[in-house]
């Protein structure tokens, strides 16, 4: 009797749960469909790809950009320039010295593969609303205390679930998923440079675009090799003081500034992002200096995103940045002369839409980070006044 009663109870509970789950799914589904009118009949740009082949263990691939100093290898990929002893792993946690040679542990084994819309970069002036195959490998050379992908970036390839995707396979998946291109994101694409460059080459041959999301903490040489393969590069300029870079990211500022200049000079499409962290880099005076530096070095046409901080990783103790702060920063940046300044992480905010700087008409209306439901740019020009808007539109 007792048992029976329990059984009855659990069954009833099960039915209840199932019913509520169904309702929940329906509820969450509805606004999804309602909000994305543009995608009716089309696939939603953000999709999880199932049935990817998994990799059982970490494999080593000879790395590029290093020198032998006799007793160590000197990694020349990023401005940390680590000298690694036999068996040692760099602070990026993906490049290792085995038998006096440097190897990459993440070649052909990304730990995240998904389709994303390019707005998630955020990259706003490249094929708006386009679906991209976003790839990320484990490991990072920075130690950002507010990393949002720390489960992937602050770990080794041993500790992540990796997929077995050689460059050609990845590109064929991108084509299969109807992607416009490859988006190197989540962690640091320049660290798995051997893999990134091979993917980029294969993607270009297949007629796909390459866009990279990076903190650009990388040496001049690999960057100069990587840039010709890209269509767009989005660089994080996380702060504008050496102190911030040292204290919050365990890195230095000057190589990043150099990379931004190099990327601009290469003629590839560049966008710059700054995330405003309360109390750490939200000083309007510093921010103005940053905007002025950008104005001088990359010019007024480079889009600049001022992104809102949410508590993450080791900065869970800080409040998220207020929308008003981000809007104030945006205003400062606009005052210095930058034409395309966007707010990030502020859903529904008008600051994420693109306006023609001349006639003031709204050209691109964005919904969150995932979709675009108004696109008034024709052949790279404003549809209303024919002013050309910089970007990669086709």
């Amino acid at each position: 009797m007792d048992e029976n009663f329990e059984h009855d109870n659990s069954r009833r509970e099960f039915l209840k749960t199932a019913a509520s789950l169904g309702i929940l799914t329906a509820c969450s589904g509805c606004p999804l469909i309602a909000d994305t009118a543009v995608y009716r009949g089309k696939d939603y740009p953000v999709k999880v790809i199932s049935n990817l082949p998994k990799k059982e263990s970490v494999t080593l691939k000879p790395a590029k950009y290093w020198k032998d100093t006799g007793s160590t290898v000197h990694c020349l990929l990023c401005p940390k320039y680590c000298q690694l002893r036999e068996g040692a792993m760099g602070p990026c946690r993906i490049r290792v010295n085995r038998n006096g040679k440097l190897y990459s542990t993440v070649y052909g084994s990304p730990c995240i593969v998904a389709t994303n819309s390019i707005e998630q970069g955020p990259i706003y002036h490249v094929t708006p609303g386009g679906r991209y195959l976003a790839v990320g490998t484990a490991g990072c050379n920075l130690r950002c205390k507010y990393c949002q992908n720390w489960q992937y970036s602050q770990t080794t390839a041993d500790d992540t679930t990796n997929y077995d995707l050689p460059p050609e396979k990845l590109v064929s998946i991108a084509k299969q998923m109807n992607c416009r291109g490859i988006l190197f994101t989540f962690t640091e694409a320049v660290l798995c440079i051997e893999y990134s460059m091979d993917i980029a080459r294969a993607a270009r041959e297949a007629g796909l675009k390459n866009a990279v999301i990076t903190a650009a903490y990388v040496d001049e040489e690999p960057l100069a090799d990587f840039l010709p393969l890209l269509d767009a590069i989005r660089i994080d300029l996380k702060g504008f003081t050496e102190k911030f870079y040292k204290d919050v990211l365990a890195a230095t500022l000057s190589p990043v500034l150099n990379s931004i200049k190099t990327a601009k000079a290469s003629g590839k499409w560049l966008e710059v992002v700054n995330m405003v962290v309360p109390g750490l880099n939200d000083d309007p005076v510093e921010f103005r200096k940053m905007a002025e530096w950008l104005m001088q070095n990359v010019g007024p046409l480079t889009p600049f995103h001022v992104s809102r901080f949410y508590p993450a990783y080791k900065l869970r103790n800080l409040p998220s940045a207020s929308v008003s702060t981000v809007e104030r920063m945006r205003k400062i940046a606009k005052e210095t002369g930058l034409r395309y300044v966007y707010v990030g992480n502020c859903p529904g905010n008008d600051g994420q839409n693109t306006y023609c700087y001349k006639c003031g008409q709204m050209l691109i209306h964005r919904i969150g980070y995932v979709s675009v439901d108004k696109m008034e740019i024709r052949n790279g020009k404003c549809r209303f006044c024919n002013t050309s808007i910089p970007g990669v539109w086709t």
Partner: protein
Amino acid sequence: MRVNGCISRREFLHQTTAGIAVCASAPLLSNQGAAAPAFPEPAVRARYWEPLGNNLVRCKLEPRQCEIGDGERGVCGVRENRGGVYYSVVHSLPSAVNVAPVEETFLHALPGSKTLQIGTAGCNLQCKFCNTWQMSQTRPEEAPFQRLSPQQAIDMAKNQGCKSVCFTYNDPVVCFEYMCDTAALARKNGIKALCHTAGIIHDEPLSDLTKVMDSIVVDLKGTTKAFYKELCGVDADRVYNTAYRVARSNCCLEIASPIITGLNDNKGFVTVMSRWMLQNVGAGVPWQLRRFYPAYQMMDLATTSLITMKEMQEMARSAGLHHVYLCNLARPGDNSILCSKCKEKVVQRIAEGCEILGLKEGKCSQCGQAIKGVWQ
């Protein structure tokens, strides 16, 4: 003794002490099993020293002229006084042996060939920007080592298809005997001998060295006494003296300069260096501008900007130097050799590829201009 299954105080103390003793001795026991092979006793007598009586010796290899008591070593850490006899500790015991493209160290020597790079522990300089400090700024006992006699080194070079042996990594002056023995043997076997040195050496050993070497790279790191004093702990005069003397010997000379951000990556350095080179070693001597990467005690400096290096290269060329190269890059750029007279490309060397276009017996096949270097 046991009361209700408990142990007495004395028993407890006994057992705990025994346990602690076992725990404490465990690491010692395991260490004994996995001990590294002991560093061999010094067996090869050093050259260039004099006894001072009372078992003291004076090293006369390099200008510091260390006075060394019994059982002590010189400032290099690899030459030891044993009962009034001076030994070279690292003879036949290199720390690093690698087969590498010769272009890593020499640009006017056997283009496109492989070389056997050898380096031992110890150095007679203490450069704050050393990038091989794990070997050079340590005692040989603390660095890895392997046994490789001069004969074995030559055999290894032959087996690996190397056309030369190159002493590099640390300053090979400190393993002078090993280097000279290997070089003399190399010559007998038709293999070229090369070395990369900072040039802190006395004149007599240097003249011995130039007799057995085919080409020497001398590092000219800075142009001021203060630079050498503060960053390398040595006297600048000796270095320039070495380059001057090598240029007047039968041995080929190349000059290498690390370009360090904020210290010598400026126009002044190029101006002074190119003027000095034109006056003292000649316009045909190759000059390697080597990119600096933060290392050792200069981790806080930025790496050399490639733009700056290219500007310096252009400046040096317009100042009259014929062969100026950018070296130590992760990915070798265009290091082609142009004829100093007709500017024809005699050796095409872009990235890893190397092709000899017009070089016959060390001369440009177009105009017959001799180009300094080791060509065959």
